[in-house]
């Protein structure tokens, strides 16, 4: 059993991902309608109910970095006029669009529709680029976030209901737009089906994340976690996705039951804040793993899942109303994990038994990175937690220095080791 189940999530995740890209590549040949969407508020449930194929340009872009060809794409977009100082995902995608959809993993079709939420401002600017290039309809979905750290509007409160109603009205308008694009009516039964799939995926995802409280951790939040996250987004609202996450949960439960960790010896349990360094994806992980450091938790698994880590369960009896509530709560949670993460970090420190927190601000993503230095100060004031800040990028290798990263990481672990020695001496 152990031989077949362990590692299944990663290998099947990779295979599903390749299949999904193949489906995307074939979309234009089969004249299939597509929607460009983003991970925070992808609305896969509605899109799948209309048989619109969701395409995630964020994921397309990060794939160019993982495959170490991002620099060619960035250079093409910069030659076109885009500044070196804007989001690398946007630029890689612009280059893909300029090349007629040519991508290392296949061919990206033109969008029949684009949906951008306000969870990231660059989403909106990016969608405007497609609007200009492809003259496609762009739907902007406002999801009002928390107004402050102490903002606590729960379902049923007048404030929450006002925001929910706003989201619901917009979703109804989106349904109308999808109907005009596809020429078909929304089937509420089909919508319930996609929502039910998402319910199960969310439930499993929440449990998978919680299982990493075990010692040793059953998966690395940065490497394996990113694979799972890819499937979570790509197959949201599908039966395939539901099956995958059930099996993933089964794998993690098995790993925990058998004490199977990700490293030979897990010495330090870490939390990661930010977006991964995709240009050095494996190497970045190794620089921590070599010291016995495992990422047991990461805000990336929260916000890049569009807040699905909350495990929100749609009420299928009142689909659109519940979808609005779920989108509002989940995406708001995703935003909170970027802008107000102090409390969740302090909670994770206890629940996951953290030895340290790694802050990874990057040049390309100001949404996630702008507040990290301040959050670090805040967390350090509120608890005695060692931390490390390292800067690099998610796309642009020109601002990634492996040697500098390694120096900082090595020094961090030396500090953790001497802290542990000191603590042992006191005992």
């Amino acid at each position: 059993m152990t031989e077949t189940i362990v590692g299944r999530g990663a290998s099947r995740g990779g295979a599903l991902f390749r299949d999904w890209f193949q489906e995307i590549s074939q979309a234009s040949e089969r004249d299939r309608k597509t929607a460009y969407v983003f991970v925070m508020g992808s609305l896969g449930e509605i899109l799948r109910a209309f048989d619109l194929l969701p395409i995630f340009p964020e994921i397309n872009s990060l794939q160019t970095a993982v495959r170490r060809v991002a620099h060619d794409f960035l250079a093409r977009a910069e030659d076109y006029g885009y500044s070196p100082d804007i989001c690398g995902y946007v630029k890689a995608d612009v280059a893909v669009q300029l090349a007629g959809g040519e991508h290392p993993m296949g061919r990206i079709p033109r969008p029949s529709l684009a949906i951008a939420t306000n969870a990231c401002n660059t989403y909106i600017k990016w969608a405007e680029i497609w609007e200009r290039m492809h003259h496609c309809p762009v739907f902007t979905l406002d999801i009002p976030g928390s107004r402050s750290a102490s903002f606590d509007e729960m379902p049923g409160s007048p404030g929450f209901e006002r925001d929910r109603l706003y989201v619901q009205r917009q979703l109804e308008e989106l349904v109308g737009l999808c109907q005009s694009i596809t020429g078909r009516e929304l089937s509420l039964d089909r919508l319930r089906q996609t929502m039910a799939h998402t319910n199960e995926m969310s439930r499993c995802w929440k449990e998978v994340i919680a299982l990493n409280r075990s010692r040793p951790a059953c998966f690395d939040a940065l490497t394996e976690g990113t694979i799972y996250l890819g499937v979570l987004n790509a197959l949201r609202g599908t039966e395939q996705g539901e099956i995958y996450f059930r099996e993933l949960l089964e794998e993690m439960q098995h790993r925990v039951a058998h004490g199977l960790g990700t490293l030979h010896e897990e010495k330090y349990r870490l939390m990661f804040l930010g977006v991964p360094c995709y240009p050095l994806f494996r190497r970045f992980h190794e620089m921590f793993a070599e010291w016995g450091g495992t990422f047991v938790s990461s805000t990336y698994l929260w916000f890049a899942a569009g807040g699905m880590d909350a495990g929100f369960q749609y009420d299928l009896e009142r689909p659109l109303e519940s979808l609005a509530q779920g989108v509002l709560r989940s995406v708001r949670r995703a935003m909170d994990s970027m802008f107000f993460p102090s409390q969740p970090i302090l909670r994770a420190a206890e629940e996951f038994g953290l030895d340290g927190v790694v802050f990874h601000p990057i040049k390309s993503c100001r949404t996630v990175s702008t507040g990290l230095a301040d959050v670090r100060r805040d967390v350090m004031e509120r608890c005695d937690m060692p931390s490390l800040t390292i800067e690099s990028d998610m796309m642009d290798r020109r601002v990634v220095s492996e040697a500098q990263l390694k120096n900082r990481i090595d020094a961090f672990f030396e500090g953790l080791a001497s802290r542990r020695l000191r603590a042992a001496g006191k005992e």
Partner: protein
Amino acid sequence: MKNLLPDWTGTSLDERLELCRDLVEDTEFPTVHQWKEQGGRVLGHFQVYFPEEIAHAAGLLAVKVRGAQLETRQAESHFGSYLCSILKSSLEAALSNKLPLDYFVSHPICDAARNLAAIWGRNLSYPAQVLYLPQNSRSAAAPEYLREEYRRLADDLGGVSDASLAESIAVYNRGRELLEELYRIKRETPWLLPVDEAYVLVALAGLIPRPEYNTFLEATLPLLRQRPARKTDKVRVVWEGGFCEQPPLDMLRAVARSCYVVDDDLLIGLRYILGQVPLDGDPWANLARAYLEQSSYSPVQRDEQRPKEAMLLQRIRDCGAEAAILAAAKMCEPGLDEQVAYSKTLDEEGIAYFVSEFEERMTSFDQVQIQLETFVENLVFD
């Protein structure tokens, strides 16, 4: 409350412009301190647009937080790299208490600035919050949502009655008339009002109560009209890229040496609503609808019916400009994104443009001036 400006009655136009310049460049924000000393409360609102009418009706002084020429000694450690200057200098002004506030509001205008309310909240003792202005501005649900968002803000400020909001809208309507008049002078007789002088006259609005500002402008605009200045053969241009971080005044002066800036988006948030907000009916709904339906444009506000590049073309045509200066603050993502769309559109339309980056802390402008002069010469001799 006493007036915040020193007595300017009987002073010359040059003296009044100097007064504005001094106040706008003063990093100690003396008018704000004076207001506080009189027992007043201050609401600071970060760029771009904020419905000042609500703060005014609640009895607060609404101050535009637009950065400052400050050394960012304290603020630097709260931010990472690759960020624009206005974030840092605005936080510095607050942390150092040079800009003493009782309330801070920001709107998620960009990926960086949307973090500000959270950072403020972690470091300053007064309330800091986000005002979510709609990006889906054409949704049928947007006006009602925004009306409720305004009411929520007002409740948080201690409550505002319909009558006091309506009165406040009337005060700001008068301010809008005066600012429109100021821009008319710039457009029709740009030799009477160089861009740097127009800028300080507008920026003053973000530092003092609007009734006092209106009185000042009412008395000063006639002096501008009577100014004994001669028309020269400078090129008429539009400045685009001043919606958030502000270029140093010296940079605007350098531009004014070779160009008539006949329209611009400098401090556009203070001039965002165009025309008059209706005074009949529900003032909350009127204010919300005015933002959505009778407003200007900026790279940080989505409106599918008014693409930014089409709006820029309209601005250029409406003011009879021959060229555009497409500026962007360093590290300003929306500004840099929009520069591409603007330049492609102007290429298609055969309109000349000059691309430039700036930073509020720049101190040398010789190069910009030489490049701009060359650009202008090319236009003149083309």
